[in-house]
Structures are given as C-alpha cells and as structure tokens.
C-alpha cells in the first residue's frame, strides 16, 4: 500500500496523513482462548481512531497489541513503515507511543507535577552522577522539561492542583492528570483506554474537548477505546468495531452506525 498517496482532508479542514501504524492479520491467543481473530486495520497520521465494541470484545487486548505489550501469535505490526519487532515497554515509549489506563495508573503519593514529570523520563539524559551533582547539565535538563510540562498543565487547565498529591484528587481530575502525563512525553501516537469511563456528563464533555484540542493543537494521532457510543461517534474520524474478537465494522462513524452487524452486536442478537 502506498501510504502517502491517499492522505485526505476532513470536513473540518484537518489533513489526515499516511498510515502511521498498520496492523495486519493479527491473531492473539491466551492458551485456548482467541482474544483477537485475524484482524487488520490501520491508523493514519493525525486522525482520531476509535476501537469500540461490547464488553469482552477484545478492545483492551487490541490496545495492548498496539502498545507492544502483547505480542500476537500471528500477524505483523508496522509502525512508520517498518515491521515492529518484539519490544520492551520503554522501547515502545521511545518510539513515541504513550498511553493512559482504564483504571488509572498514577503514583498516588506524588504530586500532580511530579507525576507529569515522569512522562518526560525519556528526555532526561543526565546520568545518576550528573543528577547528584545537579548544577550544569542536570539542572538545565530539568528546567527544559519542567517548561514543557508547564505547557501541558496550562493546556489541560490544571494549574490549581499542580502541587496536590494525586491521591487526594477526585476521579475525573486523575483521568486528566493521566492524560497530562501521556502528553508530556510528546507522543506521536497517543493511546487512551476508556478515557471517559466513570465520568459524569460534564467531565465527559471536558475530556472530549481536551482530546479534540490535543489532536488539533499538536497534531497528535490518537487511538482510543471507549464504550460510550455517543462520545465516540462525535470524536472520531474512523471507528473499528469489534465483537467476540472479530472485526465486524470499520469506517467513518456514519458508515459504522448504519452497519447491520454493528447494530446487532450492540442490541445483543444471539450468535450462532
């Protein structure tokens, strides 16, 4: 496939580029259970790509394949045109992939600022000795990274909780801090695992706005899992629908909405 040839411009004027990640015929098994059955799709540069499906459809497994945490038994993952080998999590991060988690994985005892600073880890080059001496390289580095983090704090409007320990924050804000940490890493590809889960309507609206703003402002490619259909349809450029480990739909929100198989999956038609 020639990736660059088919870039396109969306209705609202954003340019969606070539293929950033290409997943080809992925199959993932846990022992005898096939969590993902021969699924192929791609994620293009600059788009918001959603993966939806009922509970147990294999969405989270898919996200873990994308993030490189699971190694599928069959199939290949191409990232920026090259076949991706098995990698350790830090190697994935260095490739420019950052993520948030469904059940929030922050350091509860640390402040919001310190949590977000951990997102800059890959940009800190000073070794332990330089850090200990502090003056010079380590200090410069910290200032640069702090400046970057402060921009993210400003962007997500969380200045007021900068020095607050994460453990004391309400759920909705923790989700925002997690997004901030992922953003601090300056990712090429941002993976969001159920960013709206457990939120009230207002928090969902805020989070949607931030996701759109991130995509708009930094041109970050976003892949997200979500089961709130309404939110997904409003946000995404293209949607993959999964059910029982299979891909049953793929296309723009409108196309997916009209897909009979998708409707059946959500309304719970019996499978033979």
């Amino acid at each position, binding site marked *: 496939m020639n990736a660059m040839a088919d870039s396109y411009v969306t209705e609202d004027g954003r340019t969606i580029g070539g293929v950033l990640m290409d997943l080809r015929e992925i199959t993932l098994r846990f022992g005898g259970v096939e969590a993902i059955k021969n699924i192929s799709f791609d994620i293009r540069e600059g788009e918001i790509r959603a993966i939806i499906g009922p509970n147990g459809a294999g969405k989270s497994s898919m996200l873990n394949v994308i993030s490189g945490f699971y190694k599928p038994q069959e199939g290949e993952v191409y990232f920026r045109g090259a076949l991706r080998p098995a990698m350790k999590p830090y190697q994935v991060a260095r490739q420019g992939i950052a993520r948030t988690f469904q059940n929030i994985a922050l350091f509860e005892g640390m402040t919001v600022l310190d949590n977000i600073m951990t997102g800059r880890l890959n940009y800190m080059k000073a070794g332990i000795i330089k850090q200990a001496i502090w003056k010079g390289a380590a200090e410069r580095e910290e200032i640069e990274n702090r400046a970057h983090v*402060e921009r993210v*704090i400003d962007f997500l409007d969380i*200045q007021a909780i900068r020095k607050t320990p994460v453990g004391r924050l309400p759920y909705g804000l923790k989700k925002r801090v997690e997004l901030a940490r992922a953003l601090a890493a300056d990712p090429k590809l941002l993976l969001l695992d159920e960013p709206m889960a457990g939120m009230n309507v207002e928090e969902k609206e805020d989070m949607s706005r931030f996701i759109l703003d991130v995509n708009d402002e930094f041109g970050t490619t976003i892949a997200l899992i979500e089961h709130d259909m309404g939110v997904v349809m409003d946000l995404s450029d293209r949607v993959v629908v999964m059910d029982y480990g299979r891909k049953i739909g793929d296309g723009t929100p409108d196309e997916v909405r009209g897909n009979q198989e998708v409707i059946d999956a959500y309304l719970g038609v019996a499978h033979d």
Partner: protein
Amino acid sequence: MNADAHAGDITSVPKLLERNVALYGQRPAYREKEFGIWQSWTWSEAAKEIEALALGLLLLGVAKGDRVAIIGRNRPALYWSMVAVQRTGAIPVPLYQDAAAEEIAYALDNSGARFAIVGDQEQVDKIADVREDLPGLAHIIYHDGQGLRKYDHAAMTSLADVQAKGRESGDKAKLKALTDALTYDDTCVMLYTSGTTGRPKGVVLSNRNVIETAKNTAGFDHLTEKEETLAYLPMAWVGDFIFSIGHAYWAGFCVNCPESADTMHADLREIGPTYFFAPPAIFEAHLTQVMIRMEDASRLKQKMFHYFMAQAKEVGPRILDGEPVGLWARLKYAVGDFLVYGPLKNRLGFSRVRVGYTAGEAIGPELFDFYRSLGINLKQLYGQTEATVFITQQPDGQVRSDTVGVPSPGVELKITDAGEVLYRSPGTFVEYYKNPESTASTKDPEGWVATGDAGFIDPKSGHLRIIDRIKDVSKMQDGALFAPKYVENKLKFFPNILEAVVFGAGKDRCCALINIDLTAVGNWAERNNIAYSSYQEISQHPKVLEIIKGHVNAVNETVAKDEMLAGCQIHRFMVLHKELDADDGEMTRTRKVRRAVIGDKYDDLVTALYDGSASVYTETEVTYEDGRKGKIKATLQACDASVAPVAPQKVAAE
C-alpha cells in the same frame, strides 16, 4: 510628589501611560503567572505591547468613537487592550466573562460594539451563538487560541497576530495624532451596571471622571508606585477598572494577574499585595476556610488559636486605630502576632496589606473585626458605578464596622427628607448610554445623583451609615421598621450560611429563605460521617436544619436587643434546595440578591412559611452554565425558630 509634577497635561489614560514610561520605565507594571512562573512587564514594555496592539487595531479598521467589547478573565493582554483601544480614540466596553450568551448579546447590541477582544474559546463560542443578531459586530480578536484552530477565521484574528501586523506596518504618526487628540471630557470607558432591577445600563465615564477620582483617592490612601495589587475581580466591574487601571496608572504601581480563577488563593499568597480590595463574600470565604482548617487542627493549635483570637478581638482593632493600649496587652498581642496572627495572615496572603477595602455589600461586624483584629488595615468604602466607585470611605484610624466613612475627597453628600443619600463629585458619570430618561431620573440638572440607598450621617462620628436599599426598607404590619439586609447580614456571618433572604414587609412577622454554605456544611458532614449525594439532600438533612435553627435563634437574640429593629426577628425559615445563582437571575453578577425575583420565584415557599405548613413540595427551574434549562423537585421542611421577647421595658411604657 513626583507623580503630580506631570499632572497638568494629562487628559487621558494613554497620557498617564506615557508619563509612567518616563517616570517608572524600568519598574514592573504587569505580572502574570503563566507556566508556573510569574512573568513580568515593565511600564516601557507594556507601553510597547499596547502600541503594537493599537497599531494593529487601526489596521483592522477600528475608528475613533467605535465601541470595542472586552471579555475575559484578568490578564495583562486584556488590560493592554483597554488602553490600546483608548489610544485609537475608540471606547473600551468590558463585559462580564461569566455572563450568559444573551446577556453578552444585549450589551454588544446596546453598545453597538464593532469589535470584540476576548480571552478564549469560551467567549468566542458565546459570541458565535448570537452573532447572527449582531450585524454591527465586524471582527473578533482572541487571546488564547486553544481549540480555535478549526474555526472560520474570516472575521477572527489572534491578538498576537494583530500586534505583529501593527508592529510590521502600523501607522505610528496616525496613532500618535489620535492619542494626542483625546480630551479630558472624552469617554474613557463604558461599564454595564449589573442592576438589581431591570436591564443593565451602560454607564459612560469620561477621562475626567476616572483620572480625577483616581488622583483624589490615591492621595487619600497615599498610594505610591511601590504598591502591589492582585487583579482578580471581574474586569467589567467599575472597581477593577479604577483599582487596576485608574489607581495603577495614576500611582504607577504593578498589577498582578492570577494564573487561573482556581489559583487565586495561592497567587495571593505569593504576591502578598499591599493594596487589596475584596467584596465581603471573599473575606467570608477566607474566614470559612480558616475556621474549617481550625476544626481539623490539633487540640493544642485550636486552644492557641482561640486564646489569642480572643486577645486580638479585644485590643487588635484599637492598636490598629492608634488608641492607647496597656503595655501588658500589647505584649500579649505581640506574642499572639508571632504565634498566630502572623502565620495566619501569611497563609491568607495578607501579610503586607497596607490598605485593604471592602464594599459592594454591607459587611458583618464580626467578620470585619476578625480581619481588623489580626492587624489588617481593612476599611470600608461606599460607592457605585455612577460615581466612578467612590462616594465615601474610611480614613485610617477612624474605622468602624457600622459606618462607611466620610465623603471621599471632592465628593459632596446630602440626605433627602425621605432618607435617601445623594452625592455630587468629579467622578459623577456622564450619562447612561442611549438612555436619556434614566440619566435624567438618576442625575438632576445640578449634578446630584440619587443612590437609591437609605442612610444617615452618624452624629457622633460624622460618618455615613447606610441602612438598606431605600426600596427594601419598609414597615411591617404593626408599623415597626423592616430592614431585611440588617438581619440577613447577621445570618450570613455564620460560616454555614451562604445567603439569606428575609421577608416581612407589610406582614405581621418575618420569615426567611436560607442557603447553606456547602463548603462549611460539607466539611461538617464529613467529620460527622454523614453521607449525602447532592446539595439538595444535605440541605434538608434534619441535623443541618437543627444547626441552622440554632444560628437563626442566635440572630433573633441579638436582633431583639436593637430597639428599632426588634420586629425583624425570624419566626420561621426554610433551607433552600438550590444555591441562589446569577445564571437563574436570582442574583446579580456581583452576587447581590434580587429580592423581588426571589419573592416571585419561591412564592409557594413564602406562602407555606406564613400559612404554617410543616413542609411544601416545590419544582424549581434551573439554568445550567451552558444555558440549558432543567427542573429540580424537592420537598422542603419549614422550621420554627424561637423568638426572643421584644424589649419588655418599652412594652410596659406604652
């Protein structure tokens, strides 16, 4: 003084800017916390930013006499916008940033604004909602572009781009000519009054109004270029215009802008302003915070706090007023200052306050004394938009909680036979924009302005004392004086009570609707393991009602001691199931209750209070922040309070 030496040729705010560049060029003029750091601009730098913006505005087509709306939170760029607009000969019209779209639409339409300079996406969206009805609005300039990339930019530009264009190809000679042509009687700013009744009115203030007032009152409090102030009150409010532009430009001091609305307390602590203004509600919120924290503090700390606060209450205000105080008491106060008052003031950000003012609403005496006793020079002033703020203010050393001070320099005062306060001053407004009838009914041909407040000059001190709005003061059925605000303020001093509205005009007894303060009551609930899921639920909790009843009883006791107002004791009350809110029209944007609106809206509740029902079912319409409407339903309990016997000796005499 240095500042006065150049006063002669200053006929506009831009001229004051020129003078400040010459006098204080390298001193800070603006600071704003952004990206976690205080960024600052000297007067010279600010003047360059303002010039670039003014040049850019000219290129966009801003012309002499145009009205330019300015909407957003306090940020240096928006203050610069005000002065940049003035430099082009146009008129800045700051509007309340939290106003709903239709309120903004009304002001934009009424003022005939051709341009709008706004803070962020929220304001752009609001204007977009109503833009169809505003054919006169030619262009929007925004400051923070977050989320705006995809918007249609045909009639929209970022402020930075306007400045860049101005720097690149602006006509400096033309701008200078426009600025130099400004006279003392040209309009300086147009401000919309929130209005407790009717539609907002555009108050036109001239350069003379603003500069004369700033000069007189800056002299009154000896403000210098060394003051620091925090600009956090709405830019559309006359007070902020006078403090953050009038006084700041006259005295040449630095205006500090908070990082965001939520960080105000932290920013206050970091800046430590020397000149500080806040409406009573802010001081109340601070005190509530302190009290809540003390409840959570260790036994020892609590003991220390209460012991030294009692000491402070006794001698603090007297020390502040320079009255003679015994050596032993002074010593104890000094120890208290070291252990309690000092750290507390530091915590609140009031360590350096040299001149502090409160106004807008009457302040509860206990609240007022609390701050004074800590050694904070908190004073009261009385004013309104039409007076360019100042009518009366309290001189240092003559501060009392029940008066609002002596006439400000240059202000004449008189009281009508009906008891209404009138004033005339150099700050007296020019007119209400496009509203000659209202102008005529407010300001008589000799320049006297009716305030709408009932008051009298206290014979002992010569200070003005305000009783209430003249239309709210009335008689009860038996002819006793009814002054609701007096009782409401007493109720509001309790941290658990946020707002209260007392009814009783023409009735045989008084009843009240009360709002709990969710911060204080929520904290109490947490400490007592009381679970609740909503404001509505906690507001009707039997134990909460019991607490509020205790407060009402306590107020009744003190009201009974006042011979004139003993009839205003509260017989029955209800705790409301929702907070009174400006979005629902129940309060003004400056948080003054709209008595008539509340009386109408909660008519069923008031009726139930008077007919003796034990409870009442009610449905209330609410407006959400985005303008959508909804309904909340609740069954409210009516509670009986105990009423203290009214001055028995007087009854016996009759």
